[in-house]
């Protein structure tokens, strides 16, 4: 047994080393920064938790946190059900399947800057298609001036961008469900909705877990796309946490920026862990992961 355990660690070693180097050293550096006051040209000195408290009291930051939560949970609430629905509608075989797969996957493969640029081009008052549509309905759409417009533009852009991830993952997950389960449900007389609830959804649990975790982490850290489209405006409406963070870093307030990063990180970590535990145990009523 001991030998096999050693073997396991041997297999894990390359991965752990690379990840650890990339993770540990930068992490330590940031932690270091967060506890010091480093002004341009002057030597740095330890100020304990002062950076942290100043961050937590920063109004800008607090509002950004609120906005961020609202944004992330809103997009999750839309993307997950929508993604599942789409995966149910995707053809499984033939030319249609390939074409659909490529089409659905495209938004995921666009560099994030370009996503922002596309949506900017799509929604700008002078360039875009969207304002034209709205004008037909006599609505003066302007993401640069109207807060609600800006907010929903960013949300819809994220939905456009990332729903395919959930759809792709669920598409794969669906194909892993053996036919016999659906046949058994037919024989047991279950309605389509019932079958979805009792057969499909539980068996999508694992792909949904990775999907939801990825989506939560990435949406919570979102930066470049909204910056390209609205620049955080109008005013602060679409200034999410990354935006506040970048401004701090750009102003060379490394201490507070580092502290903010760590608070930011821990919020994501805790919530992800909660998601992870809930989703891993959902429907199995046990602490240990189930064997397939």
């Amino acid at each position: 047994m001991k030998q096999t355990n050693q073997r396991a660690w041997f297999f894990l070693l390359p991965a752990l080393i690379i990840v650890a180097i990339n993770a540990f050293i930068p992490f330590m550096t940031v932690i270091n920064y967060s506890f010091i006051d480093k002004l341009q040209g002057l030597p740095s000195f330890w100020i304990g938790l002062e950076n942290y408290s100043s961050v937590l009291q920063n109004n800008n930051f607090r509002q950004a946190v609120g906005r961020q939560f609202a944004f992330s949970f809103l997009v999750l609430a839309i993307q997950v059900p929508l993604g599942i629905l789409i995966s149910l509608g995707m053809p499984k075989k033939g030319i249609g399947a390939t074409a659909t797969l490529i089409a659905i996957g495209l938004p995921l493969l666009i560099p994030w800057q370009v996503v922002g640029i596309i949506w900017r081009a799509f929604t700008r008052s002078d360039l875009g298609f969207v304002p034209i549509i709205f004008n037909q309905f006599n609505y003066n759409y302007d993401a640069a001036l109207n807060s609600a417009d800006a907010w929903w533009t960013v949300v819809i852009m994220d939905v456009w961008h990332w729903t395919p991830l959930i759809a792709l993952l669920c598409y794969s997950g669906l194909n892993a469900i053996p036919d016999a389960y659906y046949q058994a449900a037919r024989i047991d007389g279950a309605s389509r909705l019932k079958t979805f609830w009792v057969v499909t959804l539980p068996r999508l649990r694992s792909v949904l877990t990775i999907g939801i975790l990825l989506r939560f982490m990435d949406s919570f850290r979102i930066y470049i796309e909204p910056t390209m489209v609205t620049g955080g405006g109008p005013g602060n409406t679409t200034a999410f946490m990354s935006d506040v963070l970048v401004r701090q870093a750009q102003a060379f307030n490394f201490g507070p920026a580092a502290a903010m990063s760590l608070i930011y990180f821990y919020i994501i970590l805790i919530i992800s862990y909660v998601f992870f535990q809930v989703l891993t145990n959902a429907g199995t009523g046990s602490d240990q992961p189930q064997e397939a």
Partner: protein
Amino acid sequence: MATIELVDVAHSYDGGKSYAVQDINLTWNDGVASALLGPSGCGKTTLLKIISGLLKPSDGKVLLDGEDVTALSPRERNVAQVFQFPVVYETLNVYNNLAFPLRNRKVPEDEIDERVTRVAEILELTPHLKRRAARLGAAEKQRISMGRGIVRADTTAVLFDEPLTVIDPHQKWHLRRKLKELHKELGLTMIYVTHDQQEALTFAEQVTVMNMGEALQTGKPQDLHHRPEAPFVGYFIGSPGMNLFDATPEAQGVRVGDYIVPLSQVPQGDNLQLGIRPEYVEASMDAHDGWLEARVNRASLTGNALMAEVSGAGLNFKVIVPENSPLRSGDTLYVRFPEENTMLYQHGKLATMEAAA
């Protein structure tokens, strides 16, 4: 409980290019325990799906108690099916799994409780009722599947598609016994699909042997054993299976290899095969007139008999001799093929016989 009939059933998965099953005319009487036996790919699973309604046959009709149900869904036919690997609803506990088919039909809760409790008792699931179905072992999960099949009051038949495939060997006999008990107690029509002849022959009163999409023979296990109507049936049933030789007709019998088997009834024509089971070959260590002389290549114990692989007269075949026989490799054995145990086939079916000259 119902009589199931398949009339001229055939099915092609590729629009007529090839047929998974064809020419199927079979009847299962009310309450019979029967088996569909055959090797992988012979079409038995296809047939099962046609009976349960999961598949609509390209041709032919399915009748339940005389009524044409070919167009009906599985739910409407009230036929239950148990699959190769255990299918349970993982998020539900055992009780709710068993109650599932009843709840979908809006059966009142107290009746549900009564039926579920009874079924759980029969299948020995009572201690597990409150546990999540996902956490049980394969054998228990299969019992849950069986339970869902029988929990409905109006189940007409229960179909089993190789249900013991993923069960541990030492639990198989337990489940098989359960199945027989179920049949005795509930009197349901049960059709059991398998490629394992031991399973089929111990469970069923009526066995249908299939190969390459055709139903070759249907009958009681003993009949299939003593009088296989097709070479494949003889070969597939019995362990070891029947010896088969190419045969040509002679005046007083048939010729197999260099040996002439004396018969009073002789088949005519070509494409003949002679079959005789190893246990029916008469053997002796002493020479006899007109018997085939063969050399023992190998003698091995099978069960409680000795099986000898012999060669003689240009033929290779197997003979079963009593366990205490002193036969050893290299010995000479004299055999004959008694007419009453010899089967003659032509073109894969029983040959027509004429009196010998």
